[in-house]
């Protein structure tokens, strides 16, 4: 039986962590996502499911608690906002290199530096291209509603364990702070230690089971030939993800001559802009990537030969537009319309930008 509640995005995802049977949350306060840990602490998940919630001394410590615990095959999560996520990048690289499953939430705020505490989408590069060192990828999910904040917890863990990879839920200050109705599902039980051993004993640190080799979680290999082989293996995995895990939403694309491309909060603005433009007789559709990596390259390629132009609507100075351009390969017009530093576009100005930058541009 589902349960309908009115919740903030940050609260909904925190409730999602508990109901998904997450084993531990390690975090550090930062606006605009502190409600995640506040909600968890108030809910006493230790009593509800036995889930651990611990406030760390820094984002560095938080992500490394996540890394350690994720090495054991348990379901582990943290959350932060842009400056805190920057601090965690080193460990994202370790998590990628040593192939452990983990989930991280970034409720993005304006940057660079300490920036502000308003919603932004200026962490797209960092999220999809790798803010840490080395050739690595992480799956990036972009919710655009409170319901999706909640729903993407299970999706993120499914993908994280399927590929032993980090999944980043890339939200923003608007989705985190706004209240909407959300349908909650049943409590999933946490896996028992025996179930974890049965499923993940081939790699996880569960204590060396008699009869098996010791399990080692490391990202180090001082032999360059071996490290190259490891990188080949990672790239093969990333290719498989690119081929199989793209998720997107299409709105009114069937007859579209123009395409808004946007995710998260800016996709919500584009929904409204689309309605305004359609009333004016402009045939515009919306392509909303739900996975930012893997990027919906094939869909963009397919549309590129049909439409007259793409408008990348981002709360940034233009980051996703680079992926659109790469996929479009010059076949049609691509322009960017951004508001940044924590400012959100109005639907009217998005329509005006479509007219000036694409239709008339």
């Amino acid at each position: 039986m589902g349960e309908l509640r009115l919740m903030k995005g940050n609260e909904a995802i925190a409730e999602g962590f508990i109901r998904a049977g997450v084993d531990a949350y390690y975090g550090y306060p930062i606006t605009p996502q502190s409600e995640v840990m506040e909600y968890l602490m108030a809910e006493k998940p230790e009593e509800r499911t036995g889930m651990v919630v611990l406030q760390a001394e820094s984002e560095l410590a938080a992500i490394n608690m996540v890394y350690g615990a994720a090495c054991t095959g348990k379901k582990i999560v943290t959350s932060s906002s842009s400056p805190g996520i920057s601090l965690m990048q080193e460990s994202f690289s370790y998590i990628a290199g040593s192939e452990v499953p983990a989930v991280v939430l970034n409720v993005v705020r304006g940057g660079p530096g300490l920036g502000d505490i308003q919603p932004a989408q200026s962490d797209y590069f960092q999220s999809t291209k790798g803010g840490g060192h080395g050739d690595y990828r992480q799956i990036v999910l972009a919710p655009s509603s409170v319901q999706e904040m909640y729903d993407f917890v299970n999706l993120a863990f499914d993908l994280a364990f399927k590929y032993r990879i980090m999944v980043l839920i890339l939200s923003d200050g608007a989705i985190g702070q706004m209240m909407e109705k959300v349908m909650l599902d049943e409590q999933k039980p946490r896996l028992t230690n025996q179930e974890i051993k049965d499923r993940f004993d081939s790699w996880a640190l569960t204590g060396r089971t008699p009869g098996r080799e010791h399990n080692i979680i490391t990202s180090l290999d001082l032999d360059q030939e071996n490290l190259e082989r490891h990188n080949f293996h990672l790239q093969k995995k990333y290719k498989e993800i690119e081929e199989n895990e793209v998720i997107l939403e299409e709105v009114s694309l069937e007859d579209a001559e123009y395409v808004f491309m946007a995710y998260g909060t800016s996709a919500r603005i584009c929904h409204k802009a689309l309605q305004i433009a359609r009333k004016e007789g402009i045939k515009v559709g919306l392509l909303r990537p739900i996975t930012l990596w893997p990027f919906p390259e094939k869909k963009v390629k397919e549309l590129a030969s049909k439409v007259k132009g793409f408008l990348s609507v981002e709360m940034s100075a233009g980051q996703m537009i680079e992926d659109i351009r790469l996929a479009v390969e010059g076949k049609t017009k691509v322009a960017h319309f951004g508001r940044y530093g924590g400012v959100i576009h109005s639907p009217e100005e998005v329509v005006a930008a479509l007219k000036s930058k694409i239709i008339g541009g």
Partner: protein
Amino acid sequence: MAEIKLEDIIKPENLVFQKTKLFTDKPLSYCPGCGHGVVHRLILEAIEELGIESETIGVAPVGCSVLAYEFMNIDIAQAPHGRAPALATGIKRVYPEKFVFTYQGDGDLAAIGTAETIHACNRGENISIFFINNGIYGMTGGQMAPTTLPGMASSTSPYGRDVASMGHPLKMTELVANLPGTRFVARHAVHTPALVRKAKKAILKAFENQKENKGLSFIEIVSNCNSGWKMTPVKSNQWLTENMLEYYKLGTLKDE
């Protein structure tokens, strides 16, 4: 006198020492004369004697002992530089019944990882921290460490550590002994057989404390780095006795 044959000597009843089964067969990467190998052995012997090898999860650092996971035949993770106590916290909190330890050098624990060390100690995590202090960054080629003694030369303090500009050597063990979260804090050394036996007892106690849910045990081992100090192993142990142990006094600082 009757001739003594080798096969008469090699008998189980004559066996006085053997390599613990928890050592893998990989040759140690440490310089001959270094204390790391001895401390590895003591930790592994303690785990074997307590019969907890399938219940133990270790965390290796960055530094000379970064490859500790190659030598220790237990489940083990390798942490980013300085973050071993955070990994150990993460592991222990989701597996409170397991034995969790970190193995860290002085650069890892007392410089880049100071915050993680102090906060894990202050929270009283029920883990064991084994801290090997040789007063230098060995792996990267002998640079000044937070624990390098005043006046001691290193590749980044070639004229000796000048405390006025480079700061003072950090006594982490004294520092964490002051925190209410720690239960057992001691400083040992392993350059004589008698000291090796004492260190072993402390390491055993650190694991036993976890079993009794007593909280954090912090064992510093003052060790030599003959390569980094540019001395023979024998000379480095003399120097350790005359200099390191003057500054880093051996003994139990706290046992509650």
